[in-house]
């Protein structure tokens, strides 16, 4: 098992270590003192770790002359608009605001019983936004149709 790299060595060789983690896909453990341990991961590895975290926005109809609301249960956020596209844009803005807020108060929010479980979804949304893929991640397409198999056993799939 690879030994953690000391923080002082990491400081001296930041570029090569970054290349190792990001381009060669090799996670790097970094240690400071006897207790502080960090892990440098490339984008692809983080994305793989979060692959099973998905978002399930729900669309609701407003009263009277219309209006659309979208509730995002994974983060307890919503967007509203006169039309669906407006509500969607509003929700995406709200997700960005929440990412900022969560990461700016990370220690506090991760200790909060009702916020701790948001962390993987926040990181996924954050990474998706950096990749310019936030809309596609928050609003995934239809679930995969069941695959016809000759055997009785089927494996549920979900995006």
């Amino acid at each position, binding site marked *: 098992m690879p030994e953690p790299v000391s923080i002082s060595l990491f400081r001296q060789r930041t570029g090569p270590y970054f290349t190792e983690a990001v381009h060669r896909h090799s996670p790097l453990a970094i240690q400071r003192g006897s207790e502080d341990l960090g892990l440098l991961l490339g984008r692809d590895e983080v994305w793989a770790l979060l692959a099973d975290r998905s978002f399930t926005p729900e669309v609701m109809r407003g*009263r009277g002359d219309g209006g659309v*609301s979208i509730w995002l249960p994974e983060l307890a956020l919503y967007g*509203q608009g006169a039309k669906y596209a407006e509500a969607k844009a509003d929700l995406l803005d709200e997700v960005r605001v*929440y990412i900022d807020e969560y990461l700016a108060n990370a220690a506090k929010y991760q200790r909060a019983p009702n916020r701790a479980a948001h962390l993987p979804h926040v990181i996924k949304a954050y990474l998706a936004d950096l990749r310019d893929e936030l809309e596609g991640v928050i609003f995934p397409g239809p679930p995969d149709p*069941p695959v016809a198999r000759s055997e009785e056993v089927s494996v549920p799939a979900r995006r």
Partner: protein
Amino acid sequence: MPVPDKKDLKRFCELDGWEQTEARSPDHDRYRKTLESGDILRTRVSHGRGPACDDPALWNRIWRHQLALASEAEFWEVLRTRRPAGRSPIGRGATAAAPQQPSMPAWLFEFLINVIGLPESDVLAMTEDEAMQSYMRHIGGQHPTL
């Protein structure tokens, strides 16, 4: 019960001891409250006048999940008594007693509009079952694996 006005929601946040956060935007003020349990609540109030939201189903989720109230009546009780909400740990969020609210998955909504080409107003008028039936007719009867 009616959906509250924006001023009602703002007043609720003041009476219930919420702090206004720095994350303001041109359209919204945002509020946050930390409970004794460590839970951090957050909500937003749009600028201007009128209802806090257009949709009773959304309002149901707001008081339940963002304000962490046991019932909608608790919201109005705070405004009436001008005292903070009680939020008993047992009733908080009221997930067990949550009534079903009309909604449909966004992917289904988008499929009906973008792929099948139905008007947005028609899809909004559908129940989830009706929307799913339209989807299944279109894809040939295979129910998606959820």
